[in-house]
């Protein structure tokens, strides 16, 4: 029933990450971890998958001698998210 849904986005944590990133300009790894209530390990894996799909950009830098990871959504990510929401809405309309 979810054939048309993007498998990259149709996962709880990845969808949560992308939903947060569409609303902001950029977010730190720690912010995403807090908002999604996920573990650092799982979040890292899902961020890597989104990055490989070209949906997000990841920038690693140092702030006050501590490593910092910033994530921001790409235009491909926004497009994929739009499509995903459209497909979900279509499914809901059909099922009513």
């Amino acid at each position, binding site marked *: 029933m*979810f054939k048309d849904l993007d*498998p990259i986005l*149709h*996962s*709880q*944590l990845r*969808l*949560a990450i992308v*939903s*947060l990133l*569409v*609303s*902001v*300009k*950029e*977010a*730190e790894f*720690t*912010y995403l971890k*807090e*908002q*999604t209530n996920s573990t650092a390990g799982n979040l890292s894996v899902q961020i890597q998958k989104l990055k490989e799909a070209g949906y997000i950009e990841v920038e690693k830098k140092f*702030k*006050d001698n501590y490593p910092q990871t910033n994530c921001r959504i790409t235009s491909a990510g926004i497009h994929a998210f739009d499509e*995903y*929401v459209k497909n*979900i*809405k279509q*499914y*809901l309309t059909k*099922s009513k």
Partner: protein
Amino acid sequence: MENNLTPEQSLALIDNMINKAKNKLADDGFLLIFWGWLVAASALIHFVCIKLQIEWGQYVWVTLMPFGGIFSAVYGIRQSKRVKVKTYVDSYLSALWIAFGIALFLTIIFIGLHGVKSTYFFLMLLYGIATFVSGGILDFKPLKIGSLFSFACAVVSVFCNETDLLLVIAVAIISSYVIPGHLLRLKFKSENV
């Protein structure tokens, strides 16, 4: 956890996440309050000094304004280090206030050339523009209403003498910065309990 989301759960999750990011009010009003009181205090001290024929009144500006500039810069750098998420609203506000700061600086350094009246007129217009646009970006009406007082004060300033101009600028800054700033801070606190 992976692909077991129903469409309803997907939409609920998206809605929840977007609201988490959206509900963060971008500005706590601190710098508005700080600059509002600093400028209002400077204008009122200068006014009282003129009335009491104390000569050093004008030096209140050259003392307090650079202090305000340095304090704001340090505050801004510290805040940016603490921030974990940057919203589009943050970047619009930052661009607006940087442009405002540059325009304000250029207006003030040519005060000798344009005269006090013209300079204060343009300062109040700049206060009005910056607070009106901030009010629009933050969707916060008191800032927009306050900015209208600043525009009105700019018009009034055209018909004032240089001493009364100090009272007009105090009214402009209190109505466009101090009052909306305190209201914004209250809203920020209530949304971030």
